């Protein structure tokens, strides 16, 4: 019956699957999630031309698009043979309202097999573009942590965004009396959303930026009608630093001095940064950033801040990290600005404005 209902709502059979899992069956849950997240590769039909692909960016910085370009050697054949890019504001000139800007009032994106969206959803235009992408693309990929978890712009979810946006037009360099613009520009939503809070997403690829190798892997898996091989572990699980036990560490240091290491020796000779007393989000963060063995911040001898988002599906990096600290006898109150542990995953309701002190009603 659920299946029929879903079909009534316009979800073709190919686009969903239903499996019953009880709460006591974690393994079955994992395998069900894996099989459900099959990116609908069977939807792709073979043809002489490349696979039609549309790219869009919402509340974003273009770092994800640069990560695509950083695929390197495989980039040229990807762009010229394997994919047929029909829409991509950063690279090509397809327009929403016809090429002369005089066709219709509703934005149009061409149909495509694959849709790739970066950025979170924070204004009405983002929402309109995203809904159009969902409508026109068979397989929708959310690329980068903004799209998958809100990313840095979702830090705004931790405060009263309406008054904050107003205050941006009241800085000391801004003309006195200026007001937040409200003509032509799209209205802001109440907060920044991850893409899957607004439309169904077939595949998520987090990271700030995402790893070019994973972007290439996902595309090649789609083209080859197979499952993509993506990391499932935590940053810690993949970190080569030496662990010797936490020793006498009971508080967390701010990163205002360099960590201890011998520059002549590899990262595997450096002691774990948590054990050195620094806040490092490795235990609760999804792996995937490593490109030369070690996680990329660790490679620069800098602690992790969690840019791939939570390693647990629907996890909360702040609560999980506090738990990890507390269970190791470390005083979590020594963490300055605990909310910024959610700096990459503030969507999905994780970050909310602090409640103001209750005002007594007379």
């Amino acid at each position, binding site marked *: 019956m659920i299946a029929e209902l879903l079909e009534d709502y316009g979800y073709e059979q190919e686009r969903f699957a239903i499996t019953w899992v009880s709460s006591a069956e974690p393994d079955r849950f994992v395998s069900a999630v894996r099989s459900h997240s099959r990116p609908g590769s069977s939807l792709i039909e073979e043809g002489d031309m490349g696979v039609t692909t549309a790219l869009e960016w919402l509340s974003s*910085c273009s770092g994800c698009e640069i990560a695509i370009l950083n695929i390197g050697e495989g980039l040229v054949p990807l*762009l010229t043979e394997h994919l047929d890019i029909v829409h991509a*504001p950063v690279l090509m000139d397809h327009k929403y309202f016809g090429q002369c800007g005089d066709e219709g009032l509703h934005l149009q994106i061409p149909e495509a097999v694959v849709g790739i969206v970066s950025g979170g959803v924070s204004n009405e235009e983002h929402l309109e573009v995203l809904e159009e992408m969902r409508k026109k693309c068979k397989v929708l990929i959310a690329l980068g942590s903004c799209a998958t978890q809100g990313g840095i712009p979702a830090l705004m979810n931790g405060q009263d965004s309406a008054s904050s946006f107003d205050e941006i037009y009241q800085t000391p360099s801004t003309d006195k009396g200026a007001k937040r613009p409200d003509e032509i520009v799209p209205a802001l939503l109440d907060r920044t959303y991850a893409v899957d809070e607004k439309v169904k997403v077939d595949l998520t690829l987090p990271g700030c930026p995402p790893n070019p190798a994973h972007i290439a892997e996902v595309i090649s898996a789609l083209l080859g009608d197979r499952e993509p091989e993506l990391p499932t572990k935590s940053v810690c699980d993949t970190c080569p630093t030496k662990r010797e036990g936490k020793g006498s560490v009971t508080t967390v240091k701010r990163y205002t001095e360099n960590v201890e290491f011998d*520059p002549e020796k590899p990262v595997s000779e450096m002691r774990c940064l948590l054990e050195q007393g620094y806040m490092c989000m490795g235990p609760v963060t999804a792996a995937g950033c490593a490109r030369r063995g070690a996680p990329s911040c660790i490679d620069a001898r800098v602690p992790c801040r969690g840019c791939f988002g939570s390693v647990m599906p629907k996890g909360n990096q702040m609560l999980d990290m506090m738990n990890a600290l507390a269970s190791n006898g470390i005083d979590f109150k020594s963490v300055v600005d605990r909310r910024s542990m959610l700096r990459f995953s503030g969507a999905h309701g994780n970050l909310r404005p602090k409640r103001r002190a209750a005002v007594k009603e007379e």
Partner: protein
Amino acid sequence: MGKVLHIQPVTRIEGHARISVHLNDEGNVEDAYMSLMSLRGFEKFIEGRPAEEVPRIVNRICGICPWMHHTASNKAVDGCFGVTPTPTGHKLRELLQVMAHINDKILHFFFLAAPDFVLGPDADYSVRNVIGVVKAAPELASQVVKMRQLGQMMLDRFAGKAIHPIAAVVGGFSKPMLEAERQELLKDTQTLLDFSQYALDYAKKNVFSKYMDVIGELGVITTGFLGTVDREDGSFRIYDGRQRLMKADGSYVDFEAEDYLEYLGEHVEPWGYGKMPYAKSWDEGFSLDLDAPKGIYRANTLARLNVCDQMSTPKAQAALEEFREAFGRPAQATLLYHYARLIELVYACERTIELLEWDGITDTDVRAKVTPGAGRGVGVVEAPRGTLIHDYSTDANGCIESANLIVGTTHNIGPMNMSVKQAATSLIKDGAYDQGILNKVEMAVRAYDP
């Protein structure tokens, strides 16, 4: 009845913009705007964050120029905490920032702008892009893709991350450079320097000489300029120096970054989220009037070349001399931004080599002692898109109390609006327009690389 053309999205730029061209009953341009469509709020959501964390948050303002936000922010936090980076820490930051300019320029000129010139402004939209360039000029394209990748991987290998870097830190840098790393970077930069000269020659031959008539007309406006110059001799600088604000007649004032509020203001119009900086110190107010603009100056490549007295590296200096010989100082033609961009590419390669050859670059004293506390710091660097200003105040705990940012692109929002209006007005006559004409209007924006 008149109508409005919505060129949206403006494409092959870094960001979200829309051009609205208002036509009157006769089909002539009554007005034209370029509106920035996105607002994220970095100034507000970094409030309360520990200041030493901010350089790795604000880099997300821009995924193409994250290094410049990263270094400007670190300089601002140095100021807040009253710390002077060690000489090596300071130079490593400059090195990485200058290296980041290299692939930015390759990206903009060849991936975003070149399709208009290689395939022609009127080519159909479906081929007028980097994929079209790859098909039309495969050898050039494969070289370009390789060089950009090389530039990105140099950053990535040494600093852990090319996009959204973490290795510059308050007080200096997170790790020293090994001799082997220095040698490898030197070798790779030499390759890029050779390419940069090839790129400049290629563009002089195939773009600038071929499109001289378009350059002389498209989007041309008359404004002042803002950039950074060396404190001692007025040479071109992108990491550290004094700000120079030049009027259209070539006269200028120099000022220190922390005094920017006396010289620059920001004007707001209701039709775009981007604020429009203007020269407050000229005391003439703000106007985008094409014949008599008020307070309008430009930033980014052409501006930097106009304000500097000379380039400090030999090959870039030779290119600047040739440029000035041809176009004067200050040069005003908007499409010359592309020419200036390629001269900066040569400089960035030469300067990278200079910094790598500096004896102290492999010193291990890379980070000064830092104590978080209350203070104010203004960090300014030259981002690819213009002078980038980060101004922070911290509380006693060293957390951000307030922040004011003026990012590179915004300096040019006013001028881009003027160039759009100039281009649209001169190209659209009596209701006659097509996709090629509207693309030329966009080319006036693209030159600014917003």
